């Protein structure tokens, strides 16, 4: 017996509560998070608390009852409200990021690679809810990071094309910085790797090491930039080697000449590109909260910049993944630098740490969760970078 889907469609239409993606960023949610993780969660602690659950209400005993029956819910909420009033830290940036690759959730890989907009990745890894991939191309490769607040695609410059074999104990590296939709920076290291290289571990200033993924002659690692990388340990068939990681600002050009004892660590931060550009496009910001309908961004190494605006009253549209060919499909196109923009001999001279002003439509409510998608296009070899920036007024 067939039934028309009309009833379900009607019911969907009458959904009394739509999901508000901003809820998790509310002070209340942040207080709930901090309150929960403040509780030690090893099994012995749990047993001890359960025993105290039968004690009379009050103090810690009141909270402990939650583990048994949940009757103490108001006690927990009371504690949360106190925390909110006293002010607590927000949910950390890149929440759930893992220093070592993690097993991917079902669908996570396919969904993320589809959003990257490139096909047949040579390497895909998950770090909690974040997925990163490397795609080989004739001129080198591209790296992509997708996650709850990140949508990044950039070219891996300065590495030899995949059909040029590299030495078995070499690594060729490109490094990039980018930021998530809240302006939190992250660093990415990716490149080709010789067949004798077994592992690459990046050491950071906070002593949390980042383990790179290695597959099909490529490797990739990325990490929140709140702690900077100092050096790396490369393990090859012949032994363990330490290599220094130059900072982004002072990195050396990307040629892979010579043969250092650790293999070729051609770390670069935008070495020469095919059109004399210094490297992959970068977007950072917002530099300031919007005022008078203007959003300030710093854009580097871009031939062209595209900014799109998602209306704050359409949270669903704002969260739609942006396809590779139509990043502004569901958004209002705000501004686009024409392709005939008079680029000088080197774009850096045109845009040295340039500040972009994205003009928002007249009458835009800047106090909602405003999502602006910014795409900076580099040269063909350096591809593009996309950032979704959520602006709260």
């Amino acid at each position, binding site marked *: 017996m067939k039934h028309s889907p009309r009833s379900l469609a009607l019911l969907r239409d*009458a959904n*009394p509560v739509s999901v508000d993606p*901003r809820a998790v960023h509310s002070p209340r949610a942040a207080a709930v998070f901090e309150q*929960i993780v403040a509780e030690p969660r090893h099994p012995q602690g749990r047993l001890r608390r359960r025993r105290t659950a039968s004690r009379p209400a009050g103090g810690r005993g009141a909270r402990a009852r939650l583990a048994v029956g*949940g009757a103490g819910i108001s006690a927990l909420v009371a504690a*949360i409200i106190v925390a909110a009033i006293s002010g607590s830290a927000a949910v950390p940036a890149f*929440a759930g990021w893992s220093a070592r690759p993690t097993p991917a*959730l079902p669908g996570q890989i396919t969904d993320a690679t589809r959003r990257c907009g490139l096909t047949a990745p040579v390497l895909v890894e998950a770090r909690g809810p974040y997925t990163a991939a490397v795609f080989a191309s004739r001129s080198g490769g591209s790296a992509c990071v997708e996650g709850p607040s990140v949508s990044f695609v950039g070219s891996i410059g300065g590495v030899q094309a995949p059909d040029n074999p590299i030495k078995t104990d070499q690594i060729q590296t490109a490094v990039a910085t980018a930021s998530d939709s809240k302006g939190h920076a992250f660093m990415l290291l990716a490149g080709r790797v010789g067949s004798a290289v077994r592992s690459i571990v990046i050491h950071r200033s906070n002593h949390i090491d980042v383990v790179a993924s290695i597959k099909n002659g490529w490797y990739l690692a990325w990490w929140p930039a709140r702690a900077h990388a100092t050096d790396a340990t490369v393990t090859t068939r012949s032994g363990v080697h330490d290599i220094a990681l130059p900072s982004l600002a002072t990195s050396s050009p990307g040629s892979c000449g010579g043969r250092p004892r650790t293999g070729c660590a051609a770390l670069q931060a935008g070495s020469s590109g095919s059109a004399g550009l210094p490297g992959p496009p970068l977007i950072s910001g917002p530099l300031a909260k919007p005022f008078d309908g203007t959003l300030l961004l710093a854009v580097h190494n871009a031939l062209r910049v595209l900014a799109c605006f998602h209306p704050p009253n359409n949270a669903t549209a704002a969260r739609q993944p942006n396809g590779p060919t139509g990043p502004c499909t569901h958004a209002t196109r705000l501004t686009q630098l024409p392709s005939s923009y008079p680029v000088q001999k080197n774009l850096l001279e045109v845009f040295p740490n340039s500040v972009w002003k994205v003009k928002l439509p007249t009458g835009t409510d800047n106090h909602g969760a405003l999502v602006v998608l910014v795409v900076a296009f580099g040269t063909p070899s350096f591809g593009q970078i996309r950032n979704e920036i959520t602006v709260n007024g």
Partner: protein
Amino acid sequence: MGQSATEDRELFSWLFEAHYALVHAFAERRVGRDLADEVAAETFLVAWRRLEAVPTEPLPWLYGVARNVVLRQLRASARQAKARELIARERPGRGAEDDGEHDGLWRAWEQLGDTDREVLSLTAWEELTVRDAARVLGVPASVFSVRLHRARRRLERHLQQTASSSTPAIPEAT
């Protein structure tokens, strides 16, 4: 299992950031805005305490926990009246854009039993697949499919009846 405190916190951070809004909306649909904060808080407290038990597809599991919290809450006599009042306020089609069709939907909804409402709301509002919705309720997918089929059929009939305003309600099958 064997994870460090840092890894626990990172995993929970992701769980919380990626699912809080969804769990909060789930709770709000069932107990209203005021109590939704409490339900979401307790749901994630359970998740923190049972982090090892959280499956790789956490959303149905979290909804299942939230559902249990809601049921406990509704059983608490002191809150029952208030919760029902809040649910009534949140029932379908009560927005400013109400029209005759939504009004009919609401009257049909009122005639459904709890089981029917539960499977319909998981499908229409949480937009879960049969497999995931079945996980929320802890029943096999085949059982959920049957329940959904019957619930849709009853909702359709109630809609037709409210349109003609004549036939009495069909009792819910067990």
